[in-house]
């Protein structure tokens, strides 16, 4: 079975692997979070080893893992599984590239995680601010693991984004116009464009940092170059990244809220426009992370205004979700509960976002626990709740089983309560003057009880995940298969078997309106189908993507320890593999034959 997955190009299998590793890293990063909270539980604490160096390592790992190796793969996994099924594509446009994208993510994440086992964990924060991340202040190979881990996995993310764009542009079912696409597919499309720009900028930032660290250039040094330049590049990536995490979740929630309100989404065109607008504005706000670096009054004001502006399309979406429920019949299934938990939580994160955009007030908020509270509110409420909602929702399509509803609700409530209990007090500790990334505080700071509450909340979140694990175990043990359409869904994925078969959409449905499957069900008819469709993407089973990614891993290991012989060996391996690939192309056996339709 492992051998099969190593060689697969199928979008559902690749999606499963993304989700599997996303969850594994979620547990590791979650454990890191518990260490952080344990250390901060009481003033002047001496919990285990988490003072100074180890604490710095743990928050660096927590942030980097959660953003790059938890949120990203979980979302990419869901996109991989659900988007083709939703739009009537029989796979992603480039299955080989899809496999390669996953294995690159895997190689990057493996590389980053190895650092822990050889005691070289990076300790520069997930933002890797220069000049702290330059070799003179963080000697040793730790930061290289950050640089190359992100570089490799970022490359994979770019490939997958490109792949999703082409899939959505070219592989929709007949009649599935852009104006009839489910909102998750729309969100995926816009997100993919954001990824292409944002991750490319990050790639160059890391490329320059690599030169700074390994070859002695001075791009980000204080004397010669400009440390702020790193911050600009990082946040030109980093802020769109927030929307890369949030927009797909918005899409998931849109589909789920419509499904379980038994009503179509309210104001579909405005929803699409606002996704696009958020994506666009997302690139114009990056300097609000840098209000305190002295960019001057003009820049501070400009970025304050653009940041406020982004609240408008976000607000539109919230009201449209609310009015989708109005007049519907709301079924409180587990996915819907996560969606309902999302709305108020996200709005709380959103309004603190507007407060943070007030640049002069941000001089107080900046880099305190208030900011920590804010971004956990938005990211957990959107991405994490969204991923949970999506996993419960699409679990039948992924595995053929439906997760237990009762345990799912336990998971939801403990998680939600734990989440608010953890992060709500941080608003206040932040205003009390507690900076982020500190491992201790004193009794005199007067923030003991609030921190203790946060710690309790964090452990509650940890416990809630045990319900999820137990749920998966129980569900698979019971092994009750479900039919095509367990949720009474609206979109095309529910016309297919659960789990989604190897060869989907044979015959291909014809779509003549939004939520076509739902309206067909209401009118007691089945969707019209056709056999005359474009060719599906070509696939074969091959181990090459795995080895290509591993070759990159070898190159980066060589660079990290400056074993240049290893780098050269890796490069030789990489290029040989690329050449082998070009001669074993899955199209070789397909091209040059007669066209069956001509």
């Amino acid at each position, binding site marked *: 079975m492992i051998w099969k997955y190593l060689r697969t190009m199928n979008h559902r299998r690749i999606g499963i692997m993304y989700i599997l590793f996303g969850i594994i890293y979620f547990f590791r990063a979650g454990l890191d979070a518990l260490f952080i909270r344990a250390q901060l539980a009481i003033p002047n604490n001496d919990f285990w080893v988490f003072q100074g160096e180890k604490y710095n390592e743990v928050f660096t790992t927590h942030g980097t893992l959660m953003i790059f190796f938890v949120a990203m793969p979980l979302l990419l996994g869901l996109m991989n599984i659900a988007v083709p099924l939703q739009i009537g594509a029989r796979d992603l446009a480039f299955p080989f590239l899809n496999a390669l994208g996953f294995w690159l993510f895997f190689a990057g994440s493996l590389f980053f995680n190895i650092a822990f086992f050889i005691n070289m964990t990076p300790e520069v924060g997930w933002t890797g601010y220069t*000049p702290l991340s330059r070799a003179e202040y963080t000697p040793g190979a730790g930061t290289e693991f950050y640089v190359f881990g992100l570089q490799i996995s970022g490359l994979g993310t770019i490939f997958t984004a490109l792949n999703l764009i082409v899939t959505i542009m070219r592989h929709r079912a007949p009649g599935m116009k852009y104006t009839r696409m489910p909102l998750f597919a729309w969100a995926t499309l816009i997100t993919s464009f954001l990824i292409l720009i944002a991750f490319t900028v990050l790639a160059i930032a890391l490329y320059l940092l690599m030169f700074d660290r390994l070859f002695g250039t001075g791009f980000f040094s*204080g004397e*010669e170059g400009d440390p702020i330049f790193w911050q600009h590049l990082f946040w030109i990536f980093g802020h769109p990244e927030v929307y890369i995490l949030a927009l797909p979740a918005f899409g998931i929630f849109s589909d789920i809220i419509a499904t379980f309100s038994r009503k179509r989404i*309210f104001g579909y065109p405005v929803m699409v426009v606002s996704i696009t607008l958020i994506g666009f504005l997302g690139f114009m706000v990056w300097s609000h992370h840098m209000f305190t670096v002295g960019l001057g009054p003009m820049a501070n004001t400009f970025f304050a205004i653009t940041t406020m502006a982004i609240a408008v399309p976000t607000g539109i979406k919230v009201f449209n979700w609310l009015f989708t429920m109005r007049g519907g019949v*709301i079924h409180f299934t587990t996915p819907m509960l996560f969606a309902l938990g999302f709305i108020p939580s996200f709005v709380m994160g959103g309004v603190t976002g507007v407060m943070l955009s007030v640049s002069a007030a941000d001089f107080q908020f900046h880099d*305190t626990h208030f900011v920590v509270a804010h971004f956990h509110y938005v990211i957990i409420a959107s991405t994490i709740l969204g991923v949970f909602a999506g996993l419960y929702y699409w679990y039948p399509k992924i595995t053929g089983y439906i997760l237990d509803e009762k345990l799912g609700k336990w998971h939801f409530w403990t998680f939600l309560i734990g989440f608010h209990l953890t992060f709500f007090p941080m608003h206040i500790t932040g205003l009390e003057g507690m900076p982020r990334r500190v491992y201790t505080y004193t009794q005199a700071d007067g923030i003991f009880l609030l921190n203790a509450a946060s710690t309790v909340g964090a452990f509650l979140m940890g416990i809630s995940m045990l319900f999820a694990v137990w749920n998966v175990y129980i569900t698979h043990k019971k092994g009750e298969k479900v039919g095509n359409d367990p949720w009474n869904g609206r979109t095309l994925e529910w016309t297919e078997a659960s789990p989604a078969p190897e060869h989907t959409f044979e015959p291909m449905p014809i779509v003549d309106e939004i939520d076509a499957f739902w309206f067909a069900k209401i009118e007691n008819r089945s969707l019209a189908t056709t056999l005359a469709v474009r060719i599906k993407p070509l696939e074969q089973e091959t181990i090459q993507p795995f080895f290509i990614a591993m070759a990159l891993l070898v190159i980066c290991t060589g660079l990290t320890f400056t074993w240049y012989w290893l780098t050269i060996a890796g490069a030789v391996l990489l290029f040989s593999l690329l050449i082998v690939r070009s001669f074993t192309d899955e199209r070789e056996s397909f091209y040059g034959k007669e066209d069956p339709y001509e």
Partner: protein
Amino acid sequence: MKKIVWLFMLIFLAGCNITVLQPKSETASEQAFLINFSFWLMMIVVVTVFTLFIRFVYKYRFTEKRKDDLPEDVKGNRKLEITWIVLPILLLIVLAVPTIAITYEQSAKAPQDRKKNGVHIDVIGKQFSWTFQYENGKKEMNRLVIPEGEPIIFHLTSEDVIHSFWAPKLGGKVDVMPGKEITYEIKKPEKGSYQGKCAEYCGLAHANMTFKTKVVAKEDYQEYLIQESQ
């Protein structure tokens, strides 16, 4: 839901003595005003959304009676949608006006004339301590003494990585950059002793990079300047 209401109660109760909402200088007062102002403005949004949310979720919940109801097929509502496009914009304009005014005045700037009226102090950050240098050349580590009621102009530089200079009761933070001087002004500090800290992660002992600030009467300040540093 109850829990959230309870938590909001907590913020109001705690709000009475939260550090940055008890400002001890004109600069910090303006910032506290903005925090309060934006908070209450945003409460309008929160209350609106929460009210609608609770109402809709309760009213349109699934019940046995509504088992076979098929909701009416609503595509949208132009008027409503325009309402929640326009109202937030108005709300944000109200917020933007004081934001711009205060940001314009308070933002940290490129190096300024050292002859500008006020007390000029050089702040030098390095891993992991603060050095304060006064106009007569006196230097002291991790202890800042300033006169009350005067504009205090800090000239900040770092010797190594980026730090951030922050005394929460006296004003917001400003980053301390290597290779580039930034100036930041705190207006009319009030007498008292305050905590100061580094707010930008700067390495191993970042959490311990603190300093004490003492705001004293003008005469005491003059006296302090001529004392030997401790």
